[in-house]
């Protein structure tokens, strides 16, 4: 029987070694999967993991990788604070959508005025505000009515999804779009576009914000009072109360932070890579970011790496579909296996695995 003993100190070897082992394990399992459906397993693994970064067309894929990873990292960084403190915002997807709607609405309200110095900052503020407001609903309900924030934030995702679909055919529909759903394309409106800042690098304002948020989060967690409070509240709510941590403010702070970053991610996405409000705008980023936060062990550097790895499986997975005609379903299964193995190896960091013959339960 398998038995787990908690380590006094998380193992440093496994903290770094476990994710590596998981990736290798997934490669083996994935190769098996691709072989079973009759594709060259080595080529498939190489196409997914190697080619986008070092292959012939890496010059194109690397910027794409960065663009894909940025929103995931940004949202996951915001979520990680709450998750450390035991505050479960799983509605980042909704905050991401509302941030995008608010930011895009500001841009469309000013169209076609040329005043980027004013419009773009206003959009950013609207994006953050939209995300924060959407996150404040579960936060305040938890503070004042002790309502479960997991469920309220999840419900608000559905509401946001309905809203974005309705706005794409209604309020925000492009009046010059010949009756088709979808807003104007913001990338074609210079005052609002979030384009690459340096041609061919993939770096737009969202990428810069993502990197900044990683750095800031690192400082806050290791140096700032807020970081300690968060840590303490997560490990022992009672001790936190004795230490004078105001739980209510912690809830509001953590939810607000994750909501703001999610909204901002949505704004940068709608003004840049996505370009317009469409019914298909929600891309599961808000949920994927939850997985990214856990894959990164809630640590800023870990999240950075996890976000890049996640993006790599998307980009590489698409490349494998295109180059080898792999069914998209097989790529999804492969991603699922990667997530499972990355999540499960974490046990090695905090626990020692022992095999005993005693019956354990």
């Amino acid at each position: 029987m398998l038995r787990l003993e908690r380590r006094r100190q998380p193992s440093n070897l496994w903290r770094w070694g476990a994710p590596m082992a998981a990736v290798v394990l997934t490669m083996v399992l994935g190769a098996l999967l691709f072989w079973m459906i009759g594709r060259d397993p080595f080529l498939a693994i190489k196409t997914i993991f190697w080619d986008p970064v070092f292959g012939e067309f890496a010059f194109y894929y690397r910027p794409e990788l960065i663009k894909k990873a940025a929103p995931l990292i940004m949202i996951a960084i915001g979520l990680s604070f709450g998750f450390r403190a035991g505050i479960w915002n799983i509605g980042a997807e909704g905050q991401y959508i509302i941030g995008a709607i608010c930011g895009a609405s500001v841009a469309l309200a000013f169209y076609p005025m040329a005043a980027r110095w004013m419009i773009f900052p206003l959009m950013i503020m609207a994006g953050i505000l939209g995300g924060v407001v959407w996150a404040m609903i579960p936060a305040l309900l938890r503070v004042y009515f002790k309502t479960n924030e997991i469920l309220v934030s999840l419900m608000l995702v559905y509401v946001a999804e309905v809203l974005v679909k309705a706005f794409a055919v209604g309020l925000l529909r492009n009046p010059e779009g010949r009756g088709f759903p979808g807003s104007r394309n913001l990338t074609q409106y210079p005052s609002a576009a979030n384009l690459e800042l340096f041609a061919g690098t993939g770096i737009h304002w969202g990428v810069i914000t993502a990197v900044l948020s990683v750095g800031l989060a690192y400082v806050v967690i290791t140096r700032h009072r807020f970081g300690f409070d968060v840590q303490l509240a997560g490990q022992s709510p009672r001790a936190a109360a004795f230490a004078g941590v105001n739980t209510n403010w912690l809830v509001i702070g953590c939810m607000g932070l994750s909501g703001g970053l999610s909204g901002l991610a949505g704004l940068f996405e709608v003004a840049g890579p996505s370009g317009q409000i469409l019914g298909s705008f929600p891309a599961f980023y808000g949920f994927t970011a939850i997985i990214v936060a856990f894959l990164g062990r809630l640590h800023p550097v870990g999240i950075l790496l996890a976000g890049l790895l996640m993006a790599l499986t998307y980009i590489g997975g698409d490349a494998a579909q295109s180059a080898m005609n792999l069914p998209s379903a097989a790529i999804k299964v492969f991603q699922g296996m990667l997530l499972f193995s990355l999540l499960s190896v974490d046990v090695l960091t905090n626990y020692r695995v022992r095999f005993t013959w005693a019956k354990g339960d």
Partner: protein
Amino acid sequence: MKRRTLLASGASAALAAAIGAPLRAQAKTKVGFIYVGPINDGGWTQHHHESAKQMVEHFGGAIDFVYQESVPEGPDAERAITQMCLGGANLIFTTSFGYMDATINVASKFPNVKFEHATGYKMADNVGVYSARFYEGRAIQGTLAGRMTKTNKVGYIASVPIPEVVRGINAAFLHARKVNPNVEFKIIWIFEWLNPAKEADAAKALIEQGCDVVLQHTDSTAPQAAAKEAGNVYTFGQAADMAEYGPMPRISSIIDNWAPYYIARAQQVIDGSWTPAFTWDGIGAGMVGIGEISDVVPAEFKAEAEAMRDAIAAGSYHPFTGPIKKQDGSDWLAAGEIADDMTLGGLNFYVEGIEGDIPS
């Protein structure tokens, strides 16, 4: 050493892309397809894929064929298309309206690759647009619906409020009214192209409200199954023939048939004669197929519908021929006037007699 060569080749490919030179010298023409759904969705994507496979068969080994399925509209589409260009495709069909901006963007970066975007309206030097006049098929369905209904209530499961769907509703309604002045339409919008559970619910709601003919602009067979269960309700296959539900409830169908167009355009790329064009073909060119009208339909009505099909195919009859008024009672087309493609392309109003509003 290995890495350096890889990097070097990457850089040269970037340069090649920038100046628009072909990336790889190749003998065979490579044709790519970007699909919005899975290739076995039973509807829209499946028919593009089947037409593509017919094209491959037609050319034998003379062309290379690549495709990518379930590509979401948005940034992922742009990457998928670029990927195909980098992979050496010469001709790429992007088969959903939502790929329009992505197609135009990528096309500007790869001037030597030809693009064909389905159902859109933006063109470029290397981007053509194609679509099918599905409303021609709707006119025939409307005629049959008007003839077959006993309750004078016809249900219509509409998908997403875009001109194509509105055209279909108008064409069906006009022709149902023409043969049956008492007929009325009940329209349900489900805001999706394929959602079997919702389609089933919509079909049941329509049937319960007395509709004994149900038209669908959505892709699943769920409404067919609902009609079969109800027993005395007629339906039409959509995108696919859905013959497995014939002769009852399915009495005819509109079949998407892109193969002739795909073959023609690929041939032009091989010959070097391809030029961007705005193609909008219907029954005449074979892009819209009318499935066999089943024997449940009385012979005289069947003959009437087939005559209309042949007249449309021959170009002697246009389903939008005046006099037609708009829903609000104002004039749209004078007697004998035929709607122009520009207006039809952006059609965003109902014709007189239809109740309800187009969602907006």
